[in-house]
């Protein structure tokens, strides 16, 4: 179990996309998520939900405000600092799994450790442990194309967990799955949260998914409308 406290904190975040007509997508967004929380961020398309996800995932920068993740101020980072923070602090779970098609399940899971410079033998061993936890040990040497949707998402979750991140950031994790598999994946995420205290943020527009989290944050027109 992790210590209680604040895992991530947004303070008056603003983000405008410059263009012919500047688009102010996030307006003074403030948000706090405690360690061990299971939160969903919900909003319609165009609500600023994706931009918020990009900022939380250190995939994109913001114009003003402050973002602290696990005690680190995430602001004005170089590309390398951002890459290292993403690698160590955040485990991504994507809607379309985003596994690399020509790498087998084991190699996909081990990839984040490759970017930490962990030797091949050790990273394959750790990846195998994660796959075992997901019940996919027998699929370790299958390519993503040879796995079912649910299996692919479990491989992706194993990849997200392998660096022991502070935060799991899931973007529509069930968007590409049928209802039965969706349920399995959601159960897995819930179990990781309850049993291992993994702080989890799920971005979704699906009320069914939102209902399975402990807190729903709604966003509309770039504002947080309810926490």
């Amino acid at each position: 179990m992790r210590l209680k406290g604040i895992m991530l904190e947004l303070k008056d975040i603003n983000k405008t996309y410059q263009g012919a007509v500047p688009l102010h997508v996030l307006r003074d967004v403030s948000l706090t998520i405690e360690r061990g929380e299971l939160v969903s961020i919900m909003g319609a398309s165009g609500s600023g939900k994706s931009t918020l996800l990009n900022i939380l995932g250190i995939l994109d920068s913001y114009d003003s405000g402050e973002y602290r993740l696990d005690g680190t101020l995430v602001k004005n980072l170089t590309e390398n600092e951002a890459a290292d923070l993403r690698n160590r602090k955040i485990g991504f779970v994507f809607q379309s799994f985003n596994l690399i098609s020509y790498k087998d399940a084991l190699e996909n899971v081990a990839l984040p450790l490759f970017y930490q410079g962990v030797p091949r033998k050790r990273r394959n061993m750790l990846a195998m442990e994660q796959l075992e936890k997901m019940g996919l040990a027998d699929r370790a040497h299958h390519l993503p194309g040879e796995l079912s949707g649910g299996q692919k998402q479990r491989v992706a979750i194993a990849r997200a967990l392998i660096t022991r991140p502070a935060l799991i950031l899931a973007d529509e994790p069930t968007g590409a799955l049928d209802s039965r598999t969706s349920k399995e994946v959601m159960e897995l995420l819930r179990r990781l949260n309850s049993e291992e205290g993994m702080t989890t943020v799920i971005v979704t527009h699906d009320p069914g998914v939102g209902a399975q989290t402990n807190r729903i944050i709604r966003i509309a027109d770039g504002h947080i409308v309810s926490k």
Partner: protein
Amino acid sequence: MTDLIREISQTVGRNKLRMALTGFAVAWGVFMLIVLLGIAQGVVNEFEDKMLGRDNYLLTIWGGQTEKVWKGLKEGRTITLEEKDLGDIGRNGSVPARAVSASIGNDTVVFSANNMTLTGGYYGASPESMYYDDINMSAGRFINNRDMQQRRRAIVIESDDARRIFGSDSAAVGKIMTGMGLAWTVTGVYAHRWRSTVYVPYSTAAALAANADEVESIDVELGGVSTKVEGREAEQAVRETLAQNHSFDPEDKNAIWVWNRFLNNLEAVEVLNILVMTMWIIGILTLLSGIVGVSNIMFVSVRERKHEIGIRRAIGARPRSILTQVVWESVAITILFGYIGIVAGTIVNGIISTMTKGMDIMRDPGVTLSTALQVTVVLVAAGAIAGLFPAIKATKVRPVEALRDE
């Protein structure tokens, strides 16, 4: 490493025709480079074999005819070299001479034995001639000091002649041949790629010469010279010594003939270097079109893998690791197809080598190990340059691409 190979095979496999065409251009460029360098090497080998012996520090001087008036003396005088000149050249401090020797030849004498003849005369040699002329004995011995002291009528003949007249090299040794109405003993047989001179002791040749003081030519072995300027200065110093001895204008190029092998060789080596350099330039320019192709294909590959690069960036790849990955892929593709070109080029060089065997234009064309290494360095550099711009483009892919659905 395994990851790299896997990823390259993926890149190669994604569009086989496109990759084959690009690969062909690279292989063709390298093939041309190897064949051209192979031919150049063949020419260099032939030159080195024929020209660059131990005698490449030798100045050989013959008497000529003056064509300039000098101190009241008319033009058209015949200059004949004499024994005295040897000592004067040797004593002249401005001639960097290591050794000075003279030779007396006679090109009308015919030697015969077993009703067969050797035409072409003889050459009066010292024991050192064996070294200057780069001769290897196949039977018997070369002229020695006792031959010189006793003015023996000893002759040394070439292997092909020995076989023709006596049956074999060893059978010739000790046999008697007649020439100038005198009996000569064959003391040795030598093998050389192109020489067929008959050698007799210098002292014997001098004794047989009409005027004992006259020498046909003088050999000056230069020492401690390395540049063309030094070579030219040495020649000029020799000309001045002889001009004084024989009263002619030192600038009169016809009064004496000088074969400056040292200078000739330096000039020839320069020409060969230009030849090799030209081959490199032509080869590399041919390779260039292949390299442009590789660069192009890497651009396409980066564009196709934008999503994948985004995923890698999202899960923590630094821009630099994306850069090196693309560059290494490019290098690997270039080397892979480059080596196909090297192999094909080496095979063709082998064919050229067989076809030109025995011809005087080239010898053993082909690339040496150092050339192969140089070509490899060129390939690595070319692949890296080809991959660099696509790789820089790849680093510009933003991690947000990972969230975009394909």
